[in-house]
């Protein structure tokens, strides 16, 4: 929704990135938990049921977890996540009182030398 124009070649990674949402993780986890615990419940012995006050708890909790997981997945499909994009820090991200002093060197990413404009002459923010 925020990035309608996707660069060619990035579509694959974007699709992958879209899967990385907390709802997909939680949803899939609960689907798996739900299936396993439901199977345990279906095969529960009398001793197990006796242990938990005469309730077949696994058969109660398993389907609930499955349903829960399904809700997350449906939610995810109905409202796909926005891409988690990393964030360049600018002075706008700081409190007003801290702008313009001490943090002049903010947008600097070693490893991407080409993306950075040359420093103004005579004022290279070095750490020393």
């Amino acid at each position, binding site marked *: 929704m925020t990035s309608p124009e996707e660069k060619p070649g990035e579509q694959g990674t974007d699709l992958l990135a879209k899967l990385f949402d*907390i709802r997909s993780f939680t949803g899939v*986890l609960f689907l798996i938990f739900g299936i396993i615990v439901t199977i345990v419940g279906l095969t529960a012995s009398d001793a197990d049921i006796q242990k938990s006050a005469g309730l077949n708890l696994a058969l109660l909790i398993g389907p609930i977890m499955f349903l829960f997981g399904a809700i997350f997945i449906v939610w995810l499909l109905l409202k796909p996540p926005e891409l988690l994009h*990393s964030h360049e820090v600018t002075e706008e991200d700081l409190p007003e009182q801290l702008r313009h002093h001490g943090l002049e060197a903010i947008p600097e990413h070693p490893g991407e030398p080409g993306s950075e404009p040359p420093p103004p002459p005579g004022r290279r923010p070095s750490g020393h």
Partner: protein
Amino acid sequence: MFLAVDSGGALSLDLSAVDLVLMVIYFSFVLGIGFALKRAVKSSLDFFLSGRSLPAWVTGIGFISANIGAVELLGQSASGAQYGSAMVHYFWIGAIPAMVFLGIVMMPFYYGSKVRSVPEYLRLRFDPKAHLINAITFVVGSMLIAGVNLYALSIVLEALLGIKLILAIMLAALFVLSYILLGGLTSAIYNEVMQFFVVLIGMVPLTIIAIKETGGLSGLFNKLSADHGSAFVEPWTGTGIGGTNPVGDWIGIILGLAFCLSFGYWTTNFAEVQRAMAAKDGNSARLTPIIGAYPKAFVPLITILPGMAALVLLPGIGTPGSGLEYNDAIPALMDKYLPPGVLGVAVTGLLAAFMAGMAANVSSFNAVFTYDLWQDYIRPGRSDHYYLVVGRWATVGGVAVAVMTALIASGFSNISNYLQTLFSFFNVPLFCAFIIGMFWKRATRSAGFWGILAGTVAAVTVYALYKVEVLSFRSDLQETMWGSIAAFTAGAIAMVLASLREPRKTDAELHGLVYGMEIRDASDLAVRPWYRSPVVLGMGVLVLNAGLYVAVYVI
């Protein structure tokens, strides 16, 4: 300390293969989240504050979940067994009004001013002295408490897997370290969300059992009332002055517990507030604690209630010779009642809660260490990437200290109680500095420092007088309530006195930080539907709370 497993083996959980499978699946998801989020961390803001990008429901659940650690789950159920239903005050009149207050009133100052941590607010509002006190005590406190959480986690691991304690500590520490290093705060919050649902579903069966086996809620309450007196099941009974309710008197509960202690903890603890600062806009930040308050209202059902039921279901718990301490209530109930599969979910939830508790300490520790100590005082003016690297190393260092604390805690089992007590001395004076700083523009630069100092001295003094039996209280709980009233009063007086002898700060210095000058973004000024309105939702949860109090009496 938390479980009796290391002392005689009275309690060990009997896990079947399917339970272990569930655990392994869960923890591979935890690591998976870390790897998936690795690509999203490019700047220090991504690492420490999730790039201020998360939706309110995620930060809201993270907010509440960061607090459901060892102390909460085992400690509150133990208190339920020991003190009875009056412990609900810690939730319904303590935590929840504080969370609503944070969301409605205080959050615009935190989020709107764009401070990156709670100590940073103090630095801008007051001066570096107040800032340093808070930053240093927070850094030390969160590392030590991370160690206590780690120790609790390792005892459970030791009991489950039969591995040596030191190995369990290392294993657990490595786990937390790796997913925080990979994904930063987002990783911690995502895991808190996942953990929250697992804990919830893992603990609910215990509540069901507790109710069914004791003859229904009214059956349980009647029996406890007959055995322990009606104050045990009615939260306000015996809270008059000179009454007998062990939790205390109503003045202490309302002023001490609700206003000072709970407001102090929930509104100034960076491990909590950080979750709200990670929200994507001003309104989401304000909604964060309020969304968290809804599930929080029901947490007593999975902690205090099973604790109280344990008195009936596990006869003799908490008495010498039974082999069970109050802290064992939940694990022992699990062992006795939960069948395979369900037990696996519950134990996974328990482990996940300890781990999330530790991760919350570590992820807030590294932010304060990097921004508030390293950047402000040691190496200012470097590139953002530099601070990201420092943050990662701080994470490693913090976990290392936590490991050492855990090893020390394994030798001195009471150490965690002392630690909690020690750091509780700072809580209330801090709140005093914040609330007065936010609402009284006249409070000056040094007022923060003197307020914190005077308040802390007062809290320590009351505690010491109680210990040497000059002052007497019904219980340790009542002492903390009155101690915090004293701390708040002393702190407030000191702040007023300090402010009177200094010139006030200029409006430019205070912009965004004090009442009347808060900065609100578009999301916070826009007309919102009721379900996005902090005020409507906040009032809703307070009404819910009142209803729950009534419900306890009706039963």
